[in-house]
């Protein structure tokens, strides 16, 4: 029970940071949804146990906010896919969030080390 609750709390917490991760992945260049999900799983070594589909509402939300721009292009295999890329405001947002995150993790790390 306690464990279940812990897992759920983790999921809630990660939902908030998912946006930042997406922005970070997209920052590397135009990329489609499936590739983003593969990339996040790859980098995080399967830490995120979210259903893959939950990525899409997040992508659409970021696009709606103007942080991502989308375009339909052919993939290497010739199939048409939706490619996302970072807008200027999206890049600013990413920088702001990364700065905020670094400050927070530094502070937490400092407390953990010294306290």
């Amino acid at each position, binding site marked *: 029970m306690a464990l279940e609750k812990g897992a759920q709390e983790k999921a809630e917490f990660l939902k908030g940071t998912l946006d930042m991760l997406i922005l970070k992945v997209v920052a590397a260049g135009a990329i489609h949804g499936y590739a983003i999900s593969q990339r996040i799983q790859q980098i995080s070594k399967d830490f995120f146990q979210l*259903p*893959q*589909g939950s990525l899409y509402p997040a992508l*659409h939300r970021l696009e*709606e906010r103007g942080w991502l721009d989308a375009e339909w292009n052919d993939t290497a295999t010739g*199939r048409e*896919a939706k490619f996302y890329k970072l807008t200027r405001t999206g890049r600013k947002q990413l920088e702001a969030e990364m700065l905020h995150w670094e400050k927070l993790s530094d502070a937490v790390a400092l407390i953990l080390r010294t306290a």
Partner: protein
Amino acid sequence: MKWLRRFTERALSEKRLDSELQFHLEQRTADYVTEGIPPEEAHRRARLEFGGVERFKEECRETHWENQWDILVRDFRFALGSLRKDRRFACAAIFALALGIGASTAIFSVVDNALLEPFAYKDSRHLVTLHLRDLDQADDWRGLFLYDEFQEFSKKNDLFDGMVANLQEDVVYSADENSILLAGNYVTPGTFEFYGIAPFLGRSLEAADYQAGAPPVFVMRYKTWVIRFGANASLLGKRFNLNGVPRTLVGVAAPRFAWGGAELWMPRPPGELKITRSFDGRQYWGVVAHIRPGVSLKQAAANLNVIAQHFSKVYPKDYPTHFSIEVESFTHIVTPREFRRALYLFSAAVGLLLLIGCANVANLLLARATTRAKELAVRAALGASRLRLVRQLLAESSLLAMAGAVLGILLAWAGVRTIAAVLPDFTIASETVIEMNGAALLFAVAAGVCTVFVFGLAPALKASRCNPEEALRDTGKGLSGAAAGVGLRNTVVVAEVALSVALLFTASLFVRSFVALQRVPLGLQTDHVLSARIPLPPDRYKTGAQLQSFFGPLLERLKSMPGITYAAESTTRPPYGGIRSEVEVSGRAHSDKWYTLFQLCSEDYLSVLRIPTLEGRRFTEAEVKDARRVAVINQTFERRYFDKEDPIGRKIQLDLLRDFPDAVKEPQFEVIGVVTDARNRGLTEPIDPEVWIPYTVTGSAMRGLLVRTTNDASAMIKTVAREIWAADPNVAMAEPNTLDYFLDLFTFAQPRFGLWIVGMFAGMGLLLAAIGVYSVMAYNTARRTHEFGLRVALGAAARDVVRMVLRQGLRLLVLGMVVGLGASLALSRIITNQLWGVSPYDPMTLGGVAVLLLLIGLMACWVPARRATRVDPMTALRYE
């Protein structure tokens, strides 16, 4: 223009969304296939990892602004469906909300209009009126003053920075064959500037109009101009023949200006003024003053008292032995003291009504949240996001709030209209406009709507935040922490019941008092009687003989007409009798002053009113014609001043007659008869001594007409008017109407209004209490569904469950009733002076109210109790 295209190409965007997600699934499947997994298994795994496709599609759609409208519509449709499923709840909540909003707004609007903002005058907070009070009798001696007094007051006073006076006058407007009577007012210089009201049309009266030799002018009241003269603007500057003087209409006053209840205002010229409408030949002016800011009413009164002391020596007859001048705030004059207190009490009750309405709505919403905790948990478990749940509940709350607010506004509107319609004349100032108070409405609606949202959403947030699994596993106790609110909710119900008892009790007292009032024996018969004042031009009708030349032939002709049985001249209108005078009775000495009412009338007066003779006889037509000094007295006069001696043949002396302009030198009258007592100071006051003498002994005093008809008296008004016109074209009837109408207006209208208001309150209080009891009992039984199921499973009969629920409800009811009865007994002291013929501690009324409330309360408990018995034990237990 990209955004517009998105809106128009929603089908395309839908296709693209599908294609995007499909792409993901295809790629994942393809990757698995390359890893060597058979295609079917690969597809299965891809789908599993992806999660619910439709759900994510929906979530994607929700982020797109162009879909917001559809989502909103869907939410509302869903909310409507879910409210329709729980119709009883929805109706109760909407009704409670509407009632709270409607009732509080309507009553507050009336109180505000009638008491707080009755006049549209400049700085009306500092306006005051003056009264002369008899300290020995604790009686209002008079609120009117002689012109000399007024001048002295305004000259020798530095605590006021303005003072005006008005004098009522009957004005006959003669135009060709039709003479109509208008209520006029003479006003003193500066009146219109004093009230600070700009004219609607033309101009107000100006300083020059009051000068000696100025051309006669007048200003008309807006309402009169509209109703009597068809709002004809071309009348401005036209000359009207008023009381035989051609006067020019110079302006129409602002719509809300109606000072003195007048239909037209004329400037008072300097020097002596002659008027038609005079009680005893003297002129009494109403005085209004503007008090200097910072000066208290007491200071002002003390100042005036010094001047009045001086006057009491000059005019000893116009002052009682011990007196004081009282200064009263302007707003206080429009509503009698008792009525005002009742209204303040009502406003407090209004606040309570609104509060209770909101508390009921909160209770209902909490009850519903409890029963729905599971539904919400299931939906959360099925993947509905918190946003979705909140939005759905938001939609439900909005629907409830909207319906409640709309219905509430309608109720408020209807309430204001109803109260304005039943409000009797002369209860409030004629300037007062009863209309809806926007601020009050806004406040009530805001309070109601906030309640709905707060209590509609709080459980939603809670439900969506808590772990679905936990909620599903819950044994039906619902939201954690709900139990903590039980005490508060029960308190609300007890308070509701208590308030409802107090209101019902008050209302019943008013009803009983009203019934008692209508059963008062008048001692005279008011049905089939036509009554009117007859103002006569003072220059042509100065003496008794001149009066006789008008009334004699007129009465003669009226009596001979079909449909009329008796016609008489009279001074005042029953059940108010005559002129008050000091009286002496020959052969009887006394140290205190003796007073009596006397009536100047013709021989048919007692017959018109069917007052029977006890001893002796009445005076005859011949005696009236010759102005013989004969008198008929009532029983009270005989009892009080003759003390068992035989009054017939004795002499009485009416002192006041000596002071009339057409004075009676030796006003001694021989008593020739005694009649039974009839009410002469209204219905509720004790009967005073009264004397009837021939009207021809003097030409002074106001005159009127009383006519007994065989059929509907009001149908004879035109006939009588024609006869009067035939007798003298310059005379018109004032206020012709049936005696029953006046009786109703002056006697029953105000109690009936009180009855109406209190009755409305009591009805609403009862309804709200019923809804309150119902909502709390519904909530309590919903929380105990599981327990009831268990009990039924263990063999409890439906009857036992019902009894359990009823007992719980009964406890609240009885507690509320005890508190309410205590409060009513404490309150009833306040309304004692508005009651008549019923004790404020009437045990019958108390018992009746208790029984009624108990029945309604138990009925409100019955519904949830019945529902509790219908719980299927298996369903209730399977929740475990």
